[in-house]
């Protein structure tokens, strides 16, 4: 880590590869109900967090407690986010309202081929693809995505609208 703080990319890559299985273990142990994809998400989140605060590591202090504190903190944060989201959901056995009209986006709702969807996303123009990745896949807010991509919120809204329309057209055609 000391070498990584000095800008040694190889040492840093070696270190991150070495700790990744340990991070997976930590996440598995604390979240046994997670799917493997959720575990990987959490591991990636810890790696990003570690990268963000790597200046706080002191060579005079042990590395593992430093890493474990970050991992546990990020896990607690994700649990808080999960329960906050859950608190806004209402569980019902039956919907109390019957809808007179057909639900919107029926064809999109019934579409269930992630492979074709991934191909269709790959085929989008770069701006639209980035918008889909940031807003739909990474679930960033419009503001965060605008900062990350260096564009305006308005431009992102246009891109995502066009991307969804293009995807819908492409998938229905296929």
């Amino acid at each position, binding site marked *: 880590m000391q070498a990584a703080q000095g800008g040694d*990319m190889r040492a840093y*890559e070696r270190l991150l590869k070495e700790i990744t299985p340990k991070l997976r273990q930590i996440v598995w142990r604390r979240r046994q109900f997670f799917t493997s994809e959720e575990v990987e998400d959490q591991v990636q989140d810890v*790696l*990003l967090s570690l990268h963000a605060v790597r200046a*706080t590591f002191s060579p005079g202090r042990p590395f593992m407690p430093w890493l474990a504190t*970050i991992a546990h903190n990020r896990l607690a944060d994700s649990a808080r986010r999960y329960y906050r989201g859950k608190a806004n959901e209402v569980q019902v056995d039956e919907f109390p309202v019957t809808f007179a009209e057909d639900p919107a986006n029926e064809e999109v709702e019934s579409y269930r081929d992630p492979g074709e969807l991934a191909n269709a996303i790959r085929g989008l123009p770069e701006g639209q693809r980035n918008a889909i990745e940031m807003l739909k896949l990474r679930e*960033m807010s419009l503001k965060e995505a605008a*900062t990350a991509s260096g564009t305006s919120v308005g431009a992102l809204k246009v891109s995502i609208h066009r991307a969804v329309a293009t995807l819908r057209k492409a998938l229905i055609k296929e």
Partner: protein
Amino acid sequence: MTTMDTDKLIERLAENADPVRRLAAPWVRTAMWIAIAAPYVALVVAMMAPRSDLQAKLSDFRFLLEQVAALSTGVAAAAAAFTSIVPGYDRRVALLPLAPLCVWLVSLGEGCIQALAQGGAGLDLESDFGCIPAIALVGALPAVAMALMLRKGAPLKPYISTALGGLAAAGLGNFGLRFSHPQDASVMVLVWQMGTVFLLTMLSAWAGRLILDWRPLLTNVRRNLGPG
């Protein structure tokens, strides 16, 4: 949702691993903070004009004890705040300022009891809202310096870290204020000065997530990694 293979992410992180300036040890950062805050506090106290009975007060044991306790609370809270943003430290370090804070409270409480024993004349509570802006003014620059320094660390416990930072700045502010503000009745100091310190600490805790948050840090890392 996973958007990138973990191995790929590691490669990207390694490519973006520019050299970073290591954060100094918490006690070193505490000393740096005092070096920034102390001249400002001294300047503000000098501008507010020191109290006329300061010479006599410097030989008053209770005054000295409370000043040492206020200063120690501020310094211990600063050290605890700087420690709380470094992963791997024992979380109990947040309790560090409790000891001097207790000495401070006990001294003020004992003063109130003495006033009560002497017939309660010293227990008259008058309005002194001036304490709030005065302590806030003396603690303003230390508070800003504290917030900026805390943001260099990991936002592990935002509310606790900023509460400790607020206590540090308010404690130092109160320490400075008593050199210029001739208010010595224990009950007045307890309610108005200690009350202000408590209020500013609570306000700082409330601002925890505004000052310390993982989200902007991670957004910044993602931005540097680029799309994909």
